[in-house]
């Protein structure tokens, strides 16, 4: 499943420079240094952290997309940074657990 395809399942695009990326697995976490060493390439990464380091970690770990759960907002200048650094970011209004379940169904 590609990042683009999530848009038809209730996920909202925040930054989508490369929606054709294929999603392979999911990682969940908010402690950025922890995520940095554990998220795998092409994972969809569910988090509620919305600072510039989130974008940096997604870029380093080369995740297919960041999914901001709980409907958290990302500041517009950070959205610009994400686009510039080619980091896909989506938003889900659902809490982390429900977001993860939804992804599990879609990726099954």
């Amino acid at each position, binding site marked *: 499943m590609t990042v683009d395809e999530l848009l038809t399942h209730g996920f909202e695009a925040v930054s989508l420079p490369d929606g054709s990326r294929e999603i392979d697995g999911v990682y969940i976490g908010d*402690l950025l*240094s922890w995520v940095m060493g554990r998220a795998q390439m092409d994972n969809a990464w569910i988090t509620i952290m919305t600072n510039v*380091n989130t974008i940096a970690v997604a870029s380093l770990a080369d995740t297919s997309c960041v999914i901001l759960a709980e409907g958290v907002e990302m500041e517009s200048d950070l959205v610009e940074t994400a686009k510039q650094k080619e980091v896909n970011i989506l938003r889900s209004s659902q809490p982390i657990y429900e977001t993860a379940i939804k992804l599990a169904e879609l990726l099954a």
Partner: protein
Amino acid sequence: MKELSLNILDVAENSVKAGASLTQILLTEHDGVLTLEIVDDGCGMSEDIVRSVVDPFYTTRTTRKVGMGIPLLKLACEQTGGSLAIESVTQEANPVEHGTHVTATFNTNHIDFTPLGDVSASILTLIQGHPDTDFLFRHQTDGGTVELDTRELREVLEDVPLNSYDVMEWIGGNLQEQYEALSADAGMSGEE
């Protein structure tokens, strides 16, 4: 990072890389505020570089070796309502007094305060990895002070390297004893 002691290790490693002969790691806990200072006499950074080290993309993209140390430390203090400041003087600007001074403040009672963790282990790791560089570690709390100065150890030890097994073991034991003396008094965590 899961523990501030890992942030400390990371940032102090930058000081060593900057060619510091003395790196000071100073922790002060008082009234629910923890102040962390890392002061070195290394080559210093220009204003432009100081501005860019807090940007994770500067550090991850152009000089990967520096790591996310400063951006993550900044996040750790800001999420408790504290702040991070960096002052630096380059060797070119002042050939005598140059170096970098990182100051991070944390509100220790904030729910998102990252535990300090095992600072002694970080200090030991630094000494082990850089036996020819000096470190001054001082942790001041309302219950007393823990202090270790490798310059003093060096004077006593003369030619024995600081990272020899016996010396490392002595330093570890000594720090532990100092921390235990604190706990017996007013506690080392700085909590009320």
